[in-house]
């Protein structure tokens, strides 16, 4: 598809607004509109990484005394999306078509047709670029094995375990999931090890599918997969998950506490919350699940999702502030152990909405800090 006038205008507006270095080169490149060489495509993608980095570094400017996020990344701009990129770089998968996740949102499903094998490190280039272009601490998000398993068509292992007719249907199905997951975990461990060798200190293991399969065995597998993935690795690990079933995150407990190397859990809460101000459970209904961490004696760090990312309707900064304060209240954690973040990635939002959400995160956190002081 050719670059349109609107695309160029959007690039200019945001390039100027974010003060992206060398943006005139991008504008010149885009003016070509089509028939880009591979080198030109790479430069355009690099600029998109740069735009994302600058957006995260400047979030909250004009609203907060200390703008910007503490941990930055290049917005996964180099990735098709969090599933397709790893799956494209691991042997054994074959794309079979798109599946609808909700509304008009889809993912391109791949089917596993033979045991997965490492082919290449699919995050190395973006890591090096991000480290080179930001002075802030870099956090690299890596899609975990459970999610790749759950979003894939488990063709190979389903067929393999279908032959075990002495097992019940559910046991066969679980065994197919577990074997697939653990094979993937070993590959992802290698990917992360190579990233750590290049200097990254903070790795976020993305497990949006943590609550997809909900049997006790499957929940244990989420922890087993995390522990296998991080085995022998030395970095600060966090875990992100979102959009659980209507029963909430409770199904992950107590097994979650066995993720020994996880320093921080970052879950989505804003989606289920009200737009009313206040620190009472009714106003902060979406944050009730946080109590679980206190119940299970969790003393490490928490990331709290304070802005729902699948709507353009925004809460006020005061509501975000109250969400942060309430999180501190119900978990009993010291403020320095709380990280404030959007519920999940912002790729479904237009840039101006994404920026407003990031502004809210930074400004809400700062107001909470002031109020708590």
């Amino acid at each position, binding site marked *: 598809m050719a670059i349109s006038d609107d695309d160029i205008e959007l690039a200019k507006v945001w390039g100027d607004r974010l003060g992206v270095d060398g943006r005139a080169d991008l504008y010149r490149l885009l003016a070509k509109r089509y028939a880009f060489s591979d080198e030109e495509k790479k430069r355009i993608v690099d600029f998109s990484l740069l735009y994302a980095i600058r957006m995260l570094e400047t979030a909250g400017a004009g609203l907060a005394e200390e703008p910007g996020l503490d941990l930055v990344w290049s917005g996964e701009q180099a990735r098709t999306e969090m599933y397709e990129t790893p799956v494209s770089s691991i042997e054994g998968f074959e794309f*079979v078509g798109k599946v609808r996740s909700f509304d008009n949102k*889809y993912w391109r499903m791949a089917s596993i047709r033979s045991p997965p094998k490492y082919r290449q490190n699919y995050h190395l280039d973006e890591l090096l670029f991000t480290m080179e272009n930001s002075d802030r601490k870099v956090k690299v998000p890596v899609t975990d094995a459970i999610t790749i398993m759950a979003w894939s068509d488990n063709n190979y292992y389903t067929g393999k375990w*279908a032959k075990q007719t002495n097992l019940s249907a559910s046991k066969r199905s679980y065994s197919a999931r577990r074997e697939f997951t653990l094979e993937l975990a070993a590959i992802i461990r290698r990917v992360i090890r190579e990233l750590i060798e290049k200097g990254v200190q903070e790795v976020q293991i993305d497990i949006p*599918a943590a609550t997809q399969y909900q049997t006790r065995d499957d929940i244990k597998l989420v922890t087993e997969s995390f522990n296998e993935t991080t085995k022998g690795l030395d970095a600060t690990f966090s875990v992100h998950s979102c959009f659980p079933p209507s029963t909430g995150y409770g199904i992950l407990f107590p097994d979650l506490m066995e993720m020994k190397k996880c320093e921080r859990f970052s879950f989505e809460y804003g989606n289920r919350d009200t737009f009313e101000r206040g620190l009472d459970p009714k106003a902060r209904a979406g944050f009730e699940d946080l109590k679980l961490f206190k119940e299970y004696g969790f003393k490490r760090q928490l990331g709290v999702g304070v802005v729902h990312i699948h709507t353009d309707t925004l809460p006020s900064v005061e509501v975000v502030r109250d969400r942060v304060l309430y999180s501190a209240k119900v978990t009993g954690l010291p403020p320095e152990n709380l990280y404030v973040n959007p519920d999940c990635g912002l790729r479904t939002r237009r840039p101006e909405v994404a920026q407003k959400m990031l502004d809210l995160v930074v400004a809400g956190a700062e107001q909470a800090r002031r109020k708590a002081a």
Partner: protein
Amino acid sequence: MTEYQISLAGLHARNESTIQATQDWERSRINEAALKASFEKDCSSLVALQRSVGVEYVTDGQLTLAWQDFFRPISSGFEGLEPGPMVRWFNTNTFFYKPIVKGEISSDGRALSKAVERRAIDRGGAAKVILPDPLTFAELAEDRHYRSKEKLLFAYADALREELGSLASSGVKYVQFSSPSLVYRLGQKPLSSAGLKQLGEAVRAALKGIHVRSGFHTIFGDAAPYLPSLVDVIPTDDLGFDLTETDDSSLPGSGKGLIAGIVDSRTTYLEDPASLAGRVEGIADRTGAKTITLSPSADLRFVPRVSADKKLELLGRLREKVKGGAAKGRRSN
């Protein structure tokens, strides 16, 4: 002698053109008329496939923009409801907006008719619609009004009756209630026998005075804890089972039709028709069911369209096999 029918069990996967159209529409690259045309074409091709496979009660695959999730025409179209936060749909990577009950639930009987693609179905034969059963609605909705599960069950059932009346008047011949919540008891005990009876009464209330064939399909879980009483309690003509979760040996004999969710709707892995046929024949022998509807275990929206269609075609081949097997059996007798 068992009669074998074929049916879809829920929302069908959109085809690649419709997927592209929805994305283009969201980016304002096409207008709503073009989007609607894409859905209609998609729906027509699914109807044609159902006809070629020999499906008796044809669905539109819920291939309209109205069915953004299984509750949406209800949570957006019924009085007293609105869509709330986004929540995971059981053990899938699909999501729905939780219905929020803000007031008395009622319906003018037109919400679902507007959501069904009738023109396409009418070209295919007898029309079937698939709806959330009262229990699934009551358990997944957030009740801020009735504060009573019983009241909520029956309020939903009463509103549904209005809708079903309109659908039946317009020629719909079959209504299937899909009930994941009955069998997928995440962190909950199986429904008590009193609860089950209450559900049966709610289904009865929804169908009261509605002259259509009806089915109740349990998906995503093992129905064994409710058998055989489910047969007597649920007042539908057919009772359905997800046979990736419920063992064939649990299925009871009854005078009802049996919906056999025998083809796994959660994987592109295509089962061997001969092996499936053996299972179906075993089920027919064991239950003595007069009608067995061969069906996917659940909706075919969890795999891409190409695979979903292959699964439907597999059901056609399966029926040929079991019919052939039955004929052979008759000859050898």
